[in-house]
């Protein structure tokens, strides 16, 4: 087995708050530079740049997983990461059916769909920054229905997190993992938020600018950089496991 470095929360230029420099190609190149093996692109309420990111990743030897960061009606952000683009797009269709409003680029930012060669393909006109009309339960259930990884975003942050907005993690919500932001260590998070005990925890960059890609990552000890192996690592099955960064550095030699 080998230690893989995964930054599983990266925005592209399709997120209104994502910088124009966040093209799939630039992200793949930077991920490579930063020593990442696996990344997931998770734009707000959309996966339209996921296919390009996967193709760009192939050109740079990076495994890219298609994902999105969905905003529930409680304004809790949830990462939904899938095995295939088809499943991500199926989830996207469900999200779009429950996402009201139109974007105002001057208020929220541009939403650019690009291909793997940095060519602009389209501009998304939906209010991607907005909240869906879906409850957190509906979001989590649907992600699980499409066999995705469902990860509560930046649970230590004061906005758009499950702890900040709902106070605690309901026991019957079927998260695959929780994301602790790069701002604090896992030890600090465990002290601040007792609820996370028992959940697999990851950390990631939540990059909106190219210089932030790969600045935080989660170590995954597994056989291959595949979706199934990542799930096994989350669940601690077959000897696969999450290795937190301080430990990962040592194990990485």
């Amino acid at each position, binding site marked *: 087995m080998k230690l893989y470095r995964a930054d599983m929360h990266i925005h592209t230029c399709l997120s209104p708050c994502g910088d124009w420099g966040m093209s799939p190609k630039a992200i793949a190149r930077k991920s490579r530079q930063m020593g990442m093996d696996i990344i997931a692109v998770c734009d707000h309420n959309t996966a339209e740049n996921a296919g390009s990111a996967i193709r760009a990743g192939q050109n740079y030897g990076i495994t890219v997983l298609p994902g999105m960061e969905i905003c529930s*009606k*409680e*304004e809790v952000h949830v990462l939904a990461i899938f095995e295939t683009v088809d499943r991500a797009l199926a989830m996207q269709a469900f999200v779009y059916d429950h996402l009201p409003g139109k974007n*105002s680029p001057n*208020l*929220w930012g541009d939403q650019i769909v690009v291909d793997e060669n940095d060519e602009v393909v389209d501009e998304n006109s939906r209010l991607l*920054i*907005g*909240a869906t009309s879906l409850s957190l339960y509906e979001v989590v259930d649907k992600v699980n229905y499409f066999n995705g990884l469902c990860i509560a975003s930046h649970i230590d942050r*004061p*906005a*758009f997190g499950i702890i900040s*907005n709902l106070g605690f993690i309901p026991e019957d919500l079927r998260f695959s993992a929780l994301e602790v932001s790069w701002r604090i260590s896992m030890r600090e998070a465990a002290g601040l938020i007792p609820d996370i005990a028992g959940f697999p925890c990851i950390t990631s960059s939540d990059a909106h600018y190219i210089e932030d890609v790969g600045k935080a990552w989660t170590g995954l000890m597994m056989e291959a950089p595949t979706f199934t192996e990542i799930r096994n690592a989350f669940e601690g099955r077959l000897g696969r496991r999450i290795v937190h960064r301080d430990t990962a550095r040592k194990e990485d030699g």
Partner: protein
Amino acid sequence: MQAADLAAQFNLTVVAGKKGLERTVSGGHCGDLLSEVMANAPVGCVWLTIQVHQNIIAVALLKEMAAIILTGGNRPDEETMAKADAEKIPVMVSDQRTYGLAGQLYSAGVV
């Protein structure tokens, strides 16, 4: 009433967006879910919230708000202050909780 009068009358500290203090206040709104505020806040209102994320400035622009008051001792993020300055949206802070401050504003005729 202008945003500047609010700050003076209710002992609020203006921490950003000072160039917008001549904005006229018409009505008020309390809320911390941005989607709810976007849907229901009246145009030109003063908005009381505990949300400090930079998205509050875009919401304020959308509703042409007169000012944002962060209650309960909350302070804006740095990005929030930069956006408030750029967009001339006054951001004020108060140690009072939303309920109490809203009551004072309402009693004083900010309705």
